[in-house]
């Protein structure tokens, strides 16, 4: 207890240096946690895209919907699989879709951005029940009406309700805005699949999404379809497919961020070392006094290590507090895996708070090790500055 008081008051006594060191440690933790939050936010957004009860079907060998091609005949047979849910109106919960890329001008900087456009059918709301219209209404089949995700409406002026989008040499009226619980669908434009296929001279679908009666049966369903030579399809659980679509970007964020963190942390550790070294130099007589009173080298080591750990702890809390301010802040960038604009947010988890603080404590610990060892090794008589005669 007395040791903690002693360490804390020593940090406070040199508060200007302490604050500077804290800022350094805090900044590194801020960057570290912010990167984790960003990567996690991205994965979370993509992981929430789609429904675990759904299976997405692509042509064999295709890595994304853009590369995939499923013929109308194939799609018809696939939709008739017994594992698929039959809705109250006797329709099957299977949606045939095409995926396209569209270039639009963003609201804030006026820059051009690529956007995902999905040709779909009204049954999509039964297949993806978490998607709901929050303004306006759904598109009418057979028309050039579209609905846009909430992030699209926020960022693109021409994608607001009642505005008109121009692509494929046609005009598409925005009749509704939908929300998809912060998932990747929020960054998409949806419209009638047949109109889009005609516009873009497509004869095949990009993908099919089926809602399974028993989601547990997906592995068996997948095995059966992928083995069947008639189909030549690959089957994935829908959220897993979308999560995989952000792997590259998430890895890029992590690698860049961790590289920056490592570089910064070297500086912060050196800062902590210098602070603690100055502290040891300033308190040489004090160390000699404590040793004279009977405190061992181990006690001195402990006292200075405790001080640097406290320094790290405070820096960690400062950094995490700063990063927490970013929580829920949304940014929008190009997803390298799809080439389309994707909006996602920083997302803080209790695990990240722990990792950030632990990281800072480790920096304090490493930074304090050499000065603390030097303090513990001091010769008592020399430390006291006693006359040797």
């Amino acid at each position, binding site marked *: 207890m*007395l040791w903690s008081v*002693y360490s804390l008051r*020593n940090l*406070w006594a040199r508060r200007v240096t302490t604050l500077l060191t804290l800022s350094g440690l805090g900044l590194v933790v801020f960057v570290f946690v912010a990167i984790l939050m960003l990567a996690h936010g991205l994965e979370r957004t993509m992981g929430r895209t789609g429904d675990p009860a759904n299976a997405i079907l692509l042509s064999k060998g295709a890595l994304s919907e853009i590369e995939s091609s499923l013929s109308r005949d194939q799609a018809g047979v696939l939709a008739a699989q017994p594992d698929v849910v039959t809705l109250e109106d006797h329709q099957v919960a299977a949606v045939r879709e095409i995926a396209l890329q569209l270039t639009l001008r963003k609201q804030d900087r006026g820059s051009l951005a690529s956007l995902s456009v999905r040709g779909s059918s009204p049954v999509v709301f039964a297949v993806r029940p978490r998607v709901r219209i929050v303004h306006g209404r759904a598109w009418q089949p057979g028309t050039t009406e579209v609905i846009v995700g909430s992030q699209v409406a926020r960022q693109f002026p021409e994608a607001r309700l009642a505005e008109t989008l121009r692509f494929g040499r046609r005009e598409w009226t925005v009749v509704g805005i939908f929300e998809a619980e912060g998932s990747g669908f929020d960054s998409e434009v949806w419209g009638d699949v047949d109109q889009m296929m005609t516009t873009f001279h497509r004869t095949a679908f990009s993908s099919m999404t089926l809602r399974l009666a028993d989601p547990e049966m997906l592995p068996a369903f997948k095995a059966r379809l992928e083995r069947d030579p008639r189909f030549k399809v690959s089957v994935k659980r829908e959220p897993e497919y979308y999560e995989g679509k952000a792997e590259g970007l998430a890895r890029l964020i992590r690698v860049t961020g961790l590289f920056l963190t490592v570089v910064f942390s070297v500086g912060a550790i050196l800062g902590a070392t210098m602070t603690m070294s100055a502290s040891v130099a300033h308190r040489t007589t004090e160390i*000699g006094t404590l040793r*004279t*009173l009977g405190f061992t080298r*181990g006690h001195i080591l402990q006292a200075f290590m405790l001080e640097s750990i406290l320094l790290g702890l405070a820096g960690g809390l400062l950094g995490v507090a700063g990063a927490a301010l970013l929580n829920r802040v949304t940014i929008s960038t190009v997803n390298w895996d799809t080439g389309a604009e994707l909006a996602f947010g920083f997302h803080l988890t209790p695990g990240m708070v722990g990792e950030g603080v632990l990281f800072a404590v480790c920096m304090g610990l490493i930074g304090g090790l050499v000065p603390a060892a030097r303090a513990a090794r001091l010769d008592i008589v020399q430390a006291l500055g006693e*006359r040797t005669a």
Partner: protein
Amino acid sequence: MVDPVVHLHQVTKTYSRGGTEVSVIKDLSFVIPAGTFLAIMGPSGSGKSTLLNVIAGIDRPTSGSVVVAGTRLDQLSEGEMARWRARHIGYVFQTYNLIPVLTAAENVELPLALTHLTRRERVDHVKTALRLVGLADRMDHYPRQLSGGQEQRVGVARAIVSDPTMILADEPTGNLDRESADDILTLLARLNRELGKTIVMVTHDPRAAERAQMIRHLEKGLLEMPP
């Protein structure tokens, strides 16, 4: 004859300065009986502080044996020596050496952090020690809020709080005005007289030395024995 609390036998202390060996204490043998208030006098460089440090177990002799409070110090390890100091030695410094970030009470409590006393017992000990030195009303003051005399009294309270076998004082009045110096000397004499504490004080001030029961002069590392 009272048992000796300090027994030095043929103690020599040599330092190496610029490649030359300098003997600070030369073949010194003497005993200090328990309950004595001894003043060691001598000019600068006579070896008196080194002698005090050897008795306190914070410096080791180059040769010879040092037995203090029944323990042969020159054979102890670093850790054993630290624990021994905590148990047997109360040290009063010339420059008080209080920890600036701790209050008077916390400074006095420091040696008790090495004991197994409970928090309540520690507080009681601290209060008693500070009362004994007349600073019960300054417990929560920081060293910077105390006069030099008061700081040294806190230093004395810290030296006695764990009830050590002996008190060693290195020029305890060296930085004080005459009045404060007298107060400290009176306090040390009282601790010796009333509590029976063995006190070894190094000083170059004859007036301070006069307050001790016994005075020894150290000259060029040799102790001048009484006729």
